[in-house]
């Protein structure tokens, strides 16, 4: 009997330990790196070309997506950042911003929380350098100095949502359970050794394939944690409260990466494959004579009925 209880207690302890180890492979909150003082320094820290040698296909896919130029955009994002400063920050009486020299990382987080989350690892000088670079790029285009514009455009595009943002900085969402991302680890679907001198380890990011992962940026509406909440992205909110609530079960990754066949070239409304996957349009037409009213009488009219069905996992359009 005693042996039976010993064995039973041992099994319970072992299974409890097993459950504990089922959490993600993060670690203690790491000591932050010194803040980057220039765009070049921040870009170098998150430079995705480091991954190119071994992950060429994925890198090439990613480079076609807007993640690869998240603050440049199509390129309408960069001008919109300036508009947010001119029509927003500089007109809000309590923002503290009257001139570009007043801009800080905290101010730019209104945009960069999603467009460049790693900006929180940079000094306020970098925030001002980003704004100055975008302005100089706009001016170069106005001056038709396209060589200069191209060079500045490359600088703006060097800051982006690259490999290390998803596979390290934002990899682990529930940090109390899964730990904090470690500086020497790449987070993905596998664990083990990783052939890279700077990132010698691989570990599993439990939520990487779940919609909540994309929801970190493609959000639920206003970012209330900011002093001045902005609200660009509501796709994840639409996903949760309209799509899942009505029985939908596909994840962002399943549609935007797997079923589309686009992989890391995540696309949206500008891509024919995504449009085809997202929308069914049915058009019917008929003609008849219709008495409209006493004044106009009977009119010959053609009637076109258009039905749009949104097959996607979120409202269209959204972001």
């Amino acid at each position, binding site marked *: 009997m005693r042996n039976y209880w010993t064995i039973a207690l041992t099994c319970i302890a072992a299974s409890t330990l097993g459950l504990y180890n089922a959490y993600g492979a993060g670690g203690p909150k790491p000591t932050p790196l010194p803040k980057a003082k220039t765009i070049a320094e921040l870009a170098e820290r998150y430079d995705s070309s480091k991954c190119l040698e071994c992950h060429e296909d994925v890198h090439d896919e990613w480079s076609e997506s807007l993640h690869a130029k998240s603050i440049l955009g199509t390129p309408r994002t960069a001008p919109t950042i300036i508009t947010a400063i001119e029509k927003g920050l500089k007109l809000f009486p309590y923002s503290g911003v009257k001139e570009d020299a007043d801009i800080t990382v905290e101010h730019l987080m209104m945009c960069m929380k999603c467009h460049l989350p790693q900006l929180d690892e940079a000094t306020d000088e970098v925030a001002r350098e980003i704004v100055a670079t975008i302005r100089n790029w706009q001016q170069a285009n106005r001056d038709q100095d396209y060589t200069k514009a191209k060079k500045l455009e490359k600088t703006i595009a060097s800051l982006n949502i690259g490999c290390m943002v998803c596979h390290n900085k934002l990899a682990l969402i529930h940090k109390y359970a899964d730990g904090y991302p470690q500086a020497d680890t790449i987070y993905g679907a596998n664990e083990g050794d990783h052939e890279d001198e700077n990132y010698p380890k691989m570990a599993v990011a439990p939520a990487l394939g779940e919609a909540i992962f994309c929801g970190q940026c493609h959000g639920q509406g206003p970012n209330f944690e900011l002093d001045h909440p902005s609200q*660009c992205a509501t796709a994840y909110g639409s996903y949760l409260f309209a799509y899942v609530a009505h029985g939908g079960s596909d994840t962002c990754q399943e549609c935007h990466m797997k079923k589309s066949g686009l992989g890391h070239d995540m696309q949206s409304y500008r891509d024919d494959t995504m*449009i085809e996957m997202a929308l069914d349009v049915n058009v019917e037409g008929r003609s*008849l004579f219709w008495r409209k009213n006493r004044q106009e009488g009977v009119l010959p009219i053609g009637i076109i*009925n258009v*039905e749009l069905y949104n097959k996607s996992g979120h409202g269209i*359009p959204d972001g």
Partner: protein
Amino acid sequence: MGRGPYEKSGLLRETSIPPLARVHKTFEITYPFKDVKKGTASRRELLEDELTVSVVLWYLPFGEFDGNETVFFEQEKDLDLKTEWIWR
């Protein structure tokens, strides 16, 4: 996303197509006709009894045609009144 954050203050109005939802829109297009006087009476005459309707669904990211517009769908539909009741 087509508006900068300074213009947004929440989902003021649903202008998107919600997921798994159907949206219907009906368009009425009047065939060309003219009213012809015949003595003291007036009679309507059909000028064309066939129409080719081009249906194009545009997405306007900034709410207007500014070079950023994208075509989501396009189809031509042929309509005719040949078999319909003729005005007396």
